[in-house]
Every structure is written in C-alpha cells, then in structure tokens.
C-alpha cells in the first residue's frame, strides 16, 4: 500500500492504495464518488472522464499514485451541492441528451473540456469529431450534439454575466 494526496472536487484527501489502483477505482471505491462510471476496459468508451488539473482525462488510464498533488474534478463537483446545475448539465437535461444516464457523466465532463478548448461556437461537425472518445448506445448522439452546442453558449453567457457584475 502507498499513500497518495490529492484534491478531489476541492477537498484535500489522502488515501492508502494498492499501487495498481486506477484513478477511477480511487474515486469509486475509496471515495465512493460513483458518478464516474466504467464502461469498458480498453479506454474507448469515455464513461470515466474526469478533469485532472483542468483537463479531461479518462480516469481508467491513470494510476492513482500518479496524481499526488493533483486537482481532480468529477461530475459530483461540477456544480455546487444544492446549487443550480452547471450550464452543461442543464443543457443535457433540457435537450434530452441522455437516456439511461450511464455515459452521461463522462459526456458532460468531456463536453466542458471541448468548450474550454474550442470556445462557445461549436458546429455539428466539430462536436461529433470531438466526441470520438465517448460512446453512447442510447441516444444516437443527436441530442448530445444539440446539448453540447447549447451548453457551450450557456457557459459563455454565464461567464459574460459574471464579468458584467
């Protein structure tokens, strides 16, 4: 066993783990943050996407011990507890961008990262290309693409109104 210290959703944690523990196992099994899902074993499906130091990462591809000192954000930390949803979460809800919900946390974390990298005006083709690493079996992606386009606008609108304050 070895200790790793990191911040998860803004809270510092130190956990003793078996060295082979993956980040997703640390989150799900040690911290009981079960919103991050495991849908495959070849890093293809993207159900496990979280943000590490601000960037989207498939948490099944990273050993927990690699993340000493890192800042990890999961779906549970995207919006303040009991506060309003994050604009991207709201966009998925509003546009019926989910059905069974299993791929959804990974989709939303990926979507937020797409907006960070590509900005507010995302065309259909860009969004579809950027979703290369996320699989959904329910929606046919149609409404996910719509949700991400809407969420991107809403995120920027939110930023603009904050800047105006």
């Amino acid at each position, binding site marked *: 066993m070895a200790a790793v210290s990191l911040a998860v959703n803004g809270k510092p944690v130190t956990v003793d783990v*078996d060295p*082979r523990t993956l980040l997703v196992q640390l989150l*799900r099994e040690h911290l*009981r*943050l*079960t*919103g*991050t*899902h*495991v*849908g*495959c*074993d*070849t890093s*293809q*499906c993207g*159900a496990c996407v979280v943000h590490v130091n601000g960037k989207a990462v498939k948490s099944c591809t990273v050993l927990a011990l690699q993340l000493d000192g890192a800042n990890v954000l*999961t*779906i*549970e930390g*995207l*919006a303040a507890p009991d506060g309003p*949803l994050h604009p991207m*979460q*709201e966009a*998925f*809800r*509003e546009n*019926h961008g*989910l*059905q*069974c*919900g*299993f*791929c*959804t*946390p990974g989709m*939303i974390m990926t979507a937020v990262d797409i907006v960070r990298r590509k900005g507010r005006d995302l065309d*259909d*083709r860009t*969004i*579809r*290309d950027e*979703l*290369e690493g*996320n*699989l*959904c*079996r*329910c*929606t*046919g*992606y*149609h*409404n*996910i*693409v719509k949700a991400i386009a809407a969420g991107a606008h809403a995120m920027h609108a939110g930023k603009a109104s904050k800047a105006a304050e």
Partner: protein
Amino acid sequence: MSATGIGAAVRRKEDHRFVTGKGHYTDDINRPGQAYAYFIRSPHAHATITSIDSKAAAAMPGVLAVLTGAELAADKIGNLICGWMIHSKDGSPMKMAPHPALASGKACHVGDPVAVVIAETLGQARDAAEKVKVDYAVLPAVADPVAAQKKGAPQIHEVAPHNTIYQWHIGDHKAVDAAFKSAKHVTRLDIVNNRLVPNAMEPRAAIAEYDAGSGHLTLWNTSQNPHVARLVIAAFVGMAPEHKLRVIAPDVGGGFGSKIFIYPEEVVALWAARRLGRPVKWVSDRSEAFVTDAHGRDHHTHAEMAFDADGKILALRAKTIANLGGYMSTFSSAIPTYMYAPLLSGQYSIPQIYSEVDAVYTNTVPVDAYRGAGRPEATFVVERLIEVAARELGVDPAELRRRNFIKTFPHQTPVIMAYDAGDYNASLKKAMELADCKGFSKRKRDAARHGKLRGMGFSAYIEACGIAPSQAVGSLGGGVGLWESAEVRVNPTGSVEVLTGSHSHGQGHETTFAQLVSDRLGIPIDNVSIVHGDTDKVQFGMGTYGSRSGAVGMSAIVKALDKIEAKAKKVAAYVLEAAESDIEFKDGKFSVAGTDKSAAWGDIALNAYIAHKFSGQELEPGLKEGAFYDPTNFTFPSGVHICEVEVDPDTGNTEIVAWTAVDDFGVVINPMIVEGQVHGGIAQGVGQALCEGAVYDKDGQLVTGSFMDYAMPRADYLPPIKVDTTMTKCPSNPLGIKGCGEAGAIAAPAAVINAITDAIGTEALAMPATPAAVWAALQKARKAAPHAA
C-alpha cells in the same frame, strides 16, 4: 393539453440525478462485508474439462472459495432454461440441452464460466484466478450455423443431432409453391443478418446477499425484468423459494434486450453468497461482456418474392438458419420463429407466405433478443426483396411499395398477425416530402460532379409490439403470460406512488408514467413517484422489452386509475353529502353536478384515510388500487425511413448524408422521449448496416472481442436525423399507444443497404457495409460489367 400531461414534451424527472452523478446503478451499490467474484472462463470454443486444480489458488491471500460445476451440482443448483417451447414441423419438441451456471464436463463457447474465485478484494480474486489450473481436451469447434448442420460437424450437445434444435415452419407450403409457379417475376436474395453484440454502456453486474436468520436472499442486478429473474431463479434454478428471494434492478444503464435474460453469473453470486454467508459482488468488464452477454441476429436466409404482371406480390417464402449459440438463452427460441416470421408480410398485402426456420447450436455465445428481436431480420428480408424487385422490374421503389400496401384494416396476414390500424401511404408521402425525393436526381448529379456516388434507400417497416396477449403467447409455446401489473397508492396528502411491473433502463418511465397520472388526476407531476424494479415493492411484473411499457404497462396504470377514481368518487359523495352518481371529477376537483359544491383532490385523499365521514360498514378506508392488464392484440407501429448516402468509389467509404424518419406510433405521451428513442434505434440500425459485426474465426474465437475490434457507431458516423410522425390510434388499448422503442433499429438496416446498393449499382453487398466491403462490391460489379457507369 396540460404542461405535464399526455402529449407534452416534459423534461425528464430522472435526469437531475443522472447529470449530477447521483444515479444508483448496480455497481454503485456496496454491502457491508461484501466479497468479490471473478470467473474463470473457457479460452476454448469447445473443450472437455479434464481437471480443475484449485489448491494453489485457494491458498492465495484473501481467497474465500474456489467453486466449480462439481460443487454446483452437489448443491443441486438447477440449470438455466429457455422458457419458450417451439415444436418442429414433425411435431417433436425443441432439443434443449442442459445449461448449468458453471460448465459441467465441457465448455461450449469461449467465455463459458468454468469456475469462480471469491475473495476479499477483486484484485485478490483476479490474482488467485491465475493460479487455478484447468486442463482442457480441446474438441473441434464450429461457429458458423450453416456449417454446424453439415455432416461431420462437431456435435455440441448429445440431445441435438446435427446441432439442430428445431426445424420449424409457418404458412401454407403448397399454396406458396403454386403462387410461385404462376408468377410473372421472382426476386431472390441470399441474406446474412449479421451477428451483433448489444453493448449497453453499463456492463452487467450482480450483488447477492444472504440473511441466515430469515433464509432470505437478495439480488441486485442489471435486469430489464426482475420478477421474471426471480421466478426463473426460484422455480427452475431452485436457488430459493420465490417468497424468500428479492430481486432489485435499480438504475440500469441500457439493456436493448441483453438484460432480459437470466445469466449464470447472478445464479453463482446468489449461490456463493449463501455458501459463504457473505455478500458477493460481481461486475462484468467489457471484454467479459463480449463473450457472455447474449448476442443478437445471426440469421442466414434465402428469400424469394413472387410478383404478377402488375407488380402485385403473390407470395413470399424464406428459409432461415438461425444461430442460437452454445446454449439456449431465456427467450432464444421465440426470436427467430414467432418474433420473426409473422412479420414477413411487412406493410404489404401478401396472399401467401411460407417460412422455414432451423435453429442450431454453435460454439458461440448464446444468441437471444436484441433491440427489435426478429423483427429487424424480417424487415430486412422484406424491404430488401421489394427494393431489389423494383430495380429488377424497372418500377420506382416507392410506387412498387404503394401498389402493394395494405389499405384496409383490420388486415389478417397469412402468418398469424391481424394488423389493427395504420396508414402506410400517409407515412410514405410525408417521408418523401421531408426527404425531398423530388430533388434527389439533382443531388445525385451534384455528387457525381465531385466524384461521389449518391444513393437513396427506403425502408417501410412494421413491427409487432406491446407484447402480448397471454393466451396467444401460451398457444404459441410461451411459458409466461405477457400482461402487466400496476398499483396506484394515493397517500393521505394526495401525492401518488405508482408501482409498475415495467422497468425503465433509459426509457424515462418516471416521467411518462407520471404524465399519465398527472393528466388523469390533475395533480402536479412532481407529486407522482414511479416505483419499479424491486420484487419486494412491486408484486409482480413482466418487465420491459418489445416496446411494451407504454402499450401494456401504462394500460395497467389506466385500469388502476379507473378504480382509484371510482373509489375516490364514493369518498367524495360522503364528503360533499351528495349522491355518488352526481359526483363529477375533472382537473383534480370533485364537484356535485349542478351545484357549486366541490372538494379538491387532496381533501378527498385525506378523507379516504381519516375516514371520519363514512363508517367502515359503508366503505373501506384508504385509497389504493391494483390492476393487471392483458392486451387483446399486439400493436403495430409502422413507418417509412429514407436514407441518403454518398459513397466514395475510391475508398468505399459511405457517408450518410440525410435521414428522414416518419413513424406512426399511435398516441404519443412525450414527443421528446419518442424522438430520442427513434434516434437511438436508428443509430443501432446504422451500426448494424455500416460497422458492427461479431466475427468468429474457424476455431470459434471471437475476433471482435473489445471496443478496439468491434466497431460501435460513434458520433461522427451519424447524420442529424429528421424525425416526424403520422398517427393512427391503436384501437386495442385504452391510450391508443403503439410503442416506439425498437422502430429505428428495425427500419434502419434496410434503408442503409438499399441506399448504398442504389449508389453502387449492385445488390451483392453484405452487412456490415464497411468501406472494404463496399469497395470490393464495386470492383466486382465493375469487372462483371466493365462498361457500366
């Protein structure tokens, strides 16, 4: 229409927990003291297990037990069963081989579980599994169903000579032959309906817990029908009496049929939990899912359609060999028979149909229902035949369809089904307008200018949903009734819980079912909870598949609501001091006809429970009613999908450039959810047509065993989809619902292949139409006709 009633695009109640990561899927549940199961699986497609040495493994750190088929048999754990009896044309019953939860004596497919390690942690169980020494004597294997029936093929199960489970047929053979003799034109096709892996994004999982004090077992699992799982595990596997087994299917991350069935792993988890007195958890990884989740399709068909001189269909005949894999899965026998051949009439008036189906064992993963289940296979046969026939006859494909559409209802087909309502021409007309079929030839010319081959394909599908009248199911060999149950519990404060036997694993029942209650009782949708997926809460139910939750599950709720209203009116009569016959109920208010006296829904609910206004002799207190609804017919959703593609002749790559879907689902409860179902179904159908296919090599190894090898449709594979509807009400259920869950997957493959073959000018193209396959088909066609375009 109220903002939350029937027909409103209400945003889903379940979404808040899913978008915030607060769902409760099976793997999110943990029980105190739980141990972990890891299965040792056969690496061989067909092999005798000569010995299992687990001594070294048992001594590994954290290991609690290593269990094999021998212990399973010693503990008298029964076999898994197939619950639908099919008789061969000679009258003999299907040849069902034993299917133990852990292989006994021999393994019949790669992935067949041979032993299980239970340990304190999953890591320890995996480590120990590597130390279990299984000796196999490898036997010759067969994965191809056509080869499996041939003389000299490896014999998989003693009970089934030539690996043939049944040789079934339906229809009038002689009448069909006579019709073909008189035909002016016959179109013939050989079709392989490619084998698919369902791949719901949530892998299967099970947690079993035993309470030694009460002798009760609890199973949390990823099931589409927890009550059916409980029934089979109790009555056939014999794990526990039904009343001492609780099955809970919490949030389930997609099913598409693959989570209907009762699987070895949940049986083993229950058995191990009882043996060890510890909760036992098992979660499939994706590689394991590929070799254990029941696959879909895998039909090999020769089909022929006969026409008269006017292009009217005279008859259809089809011979199909269906691969059922290494064991018969729960409903496997019904899929290539009653879920398939009765749909071979499509939307057309076909006087005579004859279909023969041979089901065979092979050394592959069991095959069972996958989204559409038999109906996509039938639609592909019919819609390819008619499209090819149109091309052969030089008739416009839309016109040939129109000429043969069924126009009057009810319509009795020659293969069981009595279609109750539809307007096929209306869907075709609307779809052709939306797809701008008139502008197609210009688009084709434009595409040619930039070196692309443009094609358009139709698929006019029908499905039989809302399964199904129990008596009919029983007469066809089904071991269950396919009604649905509902219980409506009104609380003293007027809020409502609906307990339903349907199960939601993405369909949004918490919203649509609540819309029905809100509409009927005039109460806010947030005052309604839908309870499902727990055999201790819901008395019994048949679960969700075959697009039955709306047509059957909601009809049961309607029946229960009728009783609630009747009882509430009695209460209202006492409260308002009026005759019961004068009580009217509308928009959540009870009033006395012709007066201004009224009482709100909540007042009546409270009065039903405090029972101050009536005596116990006059009326029972409380407001809770249950109902079972057994449908009187299948429902028949139908529609037309039009796909337009551009093929790059240099690479064979197909791009779907436009998709139009016009469906008739009857009455729609929530158009937003219905559109989502159509999108998802189309994606799976496009996956089948363009990229998906489970490939076995000659030794029975699954070559496409992970997301690295099995091509799932991704976002960039699919076009934006135009969805619209037409509507004929379903006459057989109180809401007029037909169902929408499978339509896209049923319609899409034929539309895609009809479009590509239109583009490349040859019919010799199998699914999946990968770039390599399309390019090869093009080259072959060009060699055969070097001067053609």
